[in-house]
């Protein structure tokens, strides 16, 4: 698991990779916290290279969504493969977190 992030005009695009599970969810959380600042307008988290996310990883997504909501930073996820999309659908997380097909769609949705 790792995160690569770039920032342009207050929008952070973070790309995670590998498996996100209870063995590295803490690291995932601290890396995610490190790439985004309260002053950022939006965070787009790209799942293209993520192979698996467990409930421990979903919890980090939830914590991130809640803290970004407090700082008024928009948050969107994108580019999930079908099995991960299904995890977000079954858990109902797609009802509270924006998910888009592509990075371009996510960026335009957050107004970048």
């Amino acid at each position, binding site marked *: 698991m790792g995160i690569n992030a770039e920032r342009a005009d207050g929008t952070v695009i973070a790309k995670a990779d590998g498996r996100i*599970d209870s063995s590295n969810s803490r690291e995932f959380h601290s890396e995610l916290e490190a790439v985004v600042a309260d002053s950022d307008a939006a965070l787009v988290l790209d799942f293209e290279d993520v192979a698996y996310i467990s*409930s421990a990883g*979903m*919890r980090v997504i939830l914590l991130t969504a*809640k803290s970004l909501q407090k700082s008024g930073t928009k948050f969107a996820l994108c580019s999930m493969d079908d*099995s991960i999309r299904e995890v977000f659908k079954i*858990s*109902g*997380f797609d009802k*509270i977190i924006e998910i888009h097909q592509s990075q371009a769609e996510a960026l335009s949705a957050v107004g970048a």
Partner: protein
Amino acid sequence: MTTTESGQKHKILVVDDEPDLEPLMLQRMRRYIRTGVYEFVFARNGVEALEALDMDESIDMVLSDINMPKMDGLTLLERIPDVAPDIRAVIISAYGDMKNIRIAMNRGAFDFVTKPVDFDDLKFTIDRTLQHIREWREALSARDKLVVLQNELNVASMMQQSILPNKFARNNDYKLFGTMQPARNVGGDFFDVVGLSDGKVGLAIADVSGKGVPAALFMMSSRTLLKGAAMRADGPGEALSEVNDVLNEDNDACMFVTMIYAVYDPETGELTYADGGHDPPLVVHADGSTTQLPVTEGLALGVLPGFDYHQHSHRLEPGDTVVLYTDGVTEAINSEEEQLGLHRLREAFEQNPPQDAEDAGHRVIDLVNDFAGDVPQFDDTTCLVLRREA
């Protein structure tokens, strides 16, 4: 890290019957004694050395001659573990006395120096020995911490096992069976069976986010809340809504639990269920064909207060088997890193319809174990089965 950098004084017990060694050692090592790196204490033979080790727990290492009256250095080596098991000894031997050096090493000496003593080499040997002792102590302390952690995990694991029903009502209308195969690092799966009024029965299966002690605690409160809500609530949707609202109070840790809660009415064969962000029930018909029941568009519990959970009803036919499972089943991984997937579960039942509820439950666990092979699984594998008999 050298002794100097550690900033800690090390006490070295020197054992030799030659009275000359003590002043020589104090003189040649004076710089390190003055700066507080070493402190030397002396004994004249093995008996005195054992007494000193027994009296003074702050001694870090022993530097001993071999030939001494009363008790020689080789015998001392054998006895040290009885009084001070974590101490390391360095032997001073005559030059070229390989026989005694071999015996000393075989008896657990950490290293040796030869006479006449080269004090630069001795300093190096002492530092190397002390470095080893520090690392050894760190490893011991890490091991102790691990044991504490392991004990906590064992408590969490026992808690998890102890709340699961292990006797299932058997009657002519329906049969129940549930089983959980825990992951190595304690997940947070549970299932429950609740007797309700009018002969109805409540069935719950759940998966708490994360692992270990926090997951186990969250699991306990979820299960207790559900039991209470199941008795009071008018249907599964209302029960989940109630549990969700309570779980959302003071949930700064953002823990959550996915859950199916279903109520079966043996009078009508009607199964009414609500999903809290959990895989919907799978119905296996008598001929082995399967139907996945629709989701009720729920959300994991503990995520959003005030969420309105809906429910859905499905009529079971005699011979139908409802399989509730956690994602430890469908997300089991094989050596090729493939997921087991719902399709393999359905295929397994299609090829070989279950004989009864217990057979269906065992078949789910067997399927996971056969699929996973030697690959360690990181999630609990849990299923709860109801079969309508009549």
